[in-house]
């Protein structure tokens, strides 16, 4: 057996260019196969964990997808609004641990402006249980403070203390609240969630700027900060409420209770359900990608056999010599199988290393928040094992051809 190993390695070394090309084509297919699988699974995971530990989202009766799109992804058709008083009542329910009011609909340049309270930064969780963290500064301190997402800060080169102006509505022609200077009090760290592309300001500031702006045109009412402090600027309406329960077991009960709320007709959406509903829209895309990676894999295997078959003519003499020295048919099959094994395992190794380098590049320079795994999952390992066995199985083809040649050639190839 030792002699067969020596022959395999020496023979491969003798054909190193064709051999390296086979390894590279296998490696490319491994990068695609594993890369597509890992990226789609990670993005799926990430997407489904855009918001976590928020048990219910309450809003006026809208579709649960609309509620999710508006309050979490800050997009979609505007929601019907709910009364602020309902929020106040609901937040006092016994089962409820925390409730964060949200209003959407304003914007800052192309980014969505969400008005809320400091509780938002305290209770929002994503990717299983991560908090929103401030890269710089902190939450709202002053009346007209604003907190911006990481992408907003990066793209517009904004820094702490900068002054920005918000616009009314998400429409293309926006009225800028040109008079109201908002000061950046905090910049969020990257999360890979819609928070990166949002700006946040206080609910009462939202109410205040709209006081000045009821006719659709801005009228500077010159309200001083002192006056603001004395004025009743409790909002009348909000878009919705994020709710965390003391005990998750009560989700359905509480949802039921909210939907039968006597003061107002309300809808309680379960974010986890709504997210997976939304994700189903992307299922076809994921299937297409998986199909592509499988096709690439099949192509790589064919590539490997064709290089093995192509070098077969050069190897006719080699095989005839080995046969004359007493190599059995089994040994010839072993040589080809071993070669396929070495090609495919080297390809897998090179592919995995390449993929990890790509992930490292992504982590260092592109999107760290995605957190793609460096190690193959069980499913991926299974695919790789199938790959190895397929390669060994198809190596029978060139081995068989070579054996037939050797019968025809006899002991000596007369070329």
């Amino acid at each position: 057996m030792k002699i067969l190993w020596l022959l395999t390695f020496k023979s491969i070394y003798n054909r190193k260019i064709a051999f390296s090309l086979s390894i590279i084509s296998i490696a490319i297919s491994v990068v695609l196969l594993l890369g597509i699988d890992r990226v789609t699974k990670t993005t799926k995971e990430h997407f489904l964990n855009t918001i976590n530990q928020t048990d219910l989202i309450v809003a006026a009766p809208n579709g649960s997808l609309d509620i999710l799109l508006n309050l979490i992804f800050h997009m979609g058709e505007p929601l019907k609004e709910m009364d602020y008083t309902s929020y106040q009542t609901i937040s006092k329910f016994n089962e409820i641990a925390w409730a964060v009011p949200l209003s959407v609909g304003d914007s800052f340049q192309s980014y969505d402006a969400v008005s809320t309270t400091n509780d938002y930064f305290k209770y929002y969780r994503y990717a299983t249980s991560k908090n929103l963290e401030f890269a710089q500064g902190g939450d709202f301190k002053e009346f007209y403070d604003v907190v911006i997402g990481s992408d907003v800060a990066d793209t517009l080169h904004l820094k702490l203390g900068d002054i920005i102006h918000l616009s009314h509505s998400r429409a293309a022609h926006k009225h800028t609240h040109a008079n109201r200077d908002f000061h950046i009090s905090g910049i969020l760290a990257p999360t890979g969630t819609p928070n990166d592309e949002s700006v946040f300001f206080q609910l009462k500031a939202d109410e205040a700027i709209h006081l000045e702006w009821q006719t659709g045109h801005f009228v500077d009412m010159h309200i001083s900060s002192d006056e603001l402090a004395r004025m009743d600027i409790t909002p009348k309406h909000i878009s919705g409420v994020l709710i965390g329960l003391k005990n998750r077991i009560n989700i359905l009960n509480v949802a039921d209770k909210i939907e039968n709320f006597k003061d107002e007709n309300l809808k309680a959406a379960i974010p986890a359900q709504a997210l997976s509903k939304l994700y189903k829209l992307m299922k076809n895309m994921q299937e297409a990608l998986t199909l592509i990676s499988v096709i690439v894999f099949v192509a790589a295997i064919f590539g490997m056999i064709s290089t093995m078959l192509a070098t077969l003519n050069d190897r006719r003499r080699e095989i005839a010599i080995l046969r004359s020295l007493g190599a059995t048919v089994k040994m010839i099959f072993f040589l080809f199988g071993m070669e396929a094994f070495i090609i495919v395992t080297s390809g897998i190794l090179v592919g995995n290393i390449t993929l990890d380098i790509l992930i490292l590049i992504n982590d260092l320079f592109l999107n760290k928040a995605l957190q793609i795994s460096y190690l193959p999952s069980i499913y991926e390992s299974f695919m790789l094992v199938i790959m190895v066995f397929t390669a060994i199985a198809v190596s029978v083809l060139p081995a068989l051809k070579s054996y037939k040649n050797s019968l025809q050639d006899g002991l000596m190839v007369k070329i």
Partner: protein
Amino acid sequence: MQSNNIIEISSCIFQYPHNSKNTLDMAPLHVRKGEHIFLHGKSGSGKTTFLNILCGIIEPDISDIKILHTDFSKLSSSHKDRFRADNYGTVFQQFNLLPYLSVKENIALSCGFSKQKSSHVSDMESEIERLLKELDLSPALLNTPAMNLSVGEQQRVAVARALIGAPKIIIADEPTSALDSDAKERFMKLLFKQVEAQNATLLFVSHDRSLSSYFGTHYDFTEINKAAR
């Protein structure tokens, strides 16, 4: 008492598939131990087919062949492979060596396929050096890749590989046809010296009648093969 015959062919018939006529139909042939046989005959007379059968690469349709007192006809093909590895040394016209292996590795390869051969060699390195010296090859060639050798050198390395491990039967198929006449003479002398030193039986196939003077026994293959008459 066992006969002194190394090879006893009572019958051997072979027909290539899709061929209406037999390629080979042998008259009985006996080869004694230590005999040096010169087989000649025009091309197409079935010499190569005969050698392939004798080595167990081709399976004859009907045969009764005893080699080294073993009923060779009854061996399975993998047994024939092992039998070939253990008992034969072979030299062909050309391309005997694996080009990417060194001279040393090419010679040792023969023992890699046979425990019996390697058991006859106590020290591989010195045995290879001895053979190279006997065959007029410089020991400096030991680690040279075979592809860097001249044809004459390659043929002598092939002889060294055929001889190592003291196989009982040496089969040579036109081993000199790629050599010029000086090299040919030198090759034959070196081959005979070693074959005699090992007391091996030599089966030498060639169409070059000028070589026949080296041999005690001559056969015209056209006579032996009834199918070629």
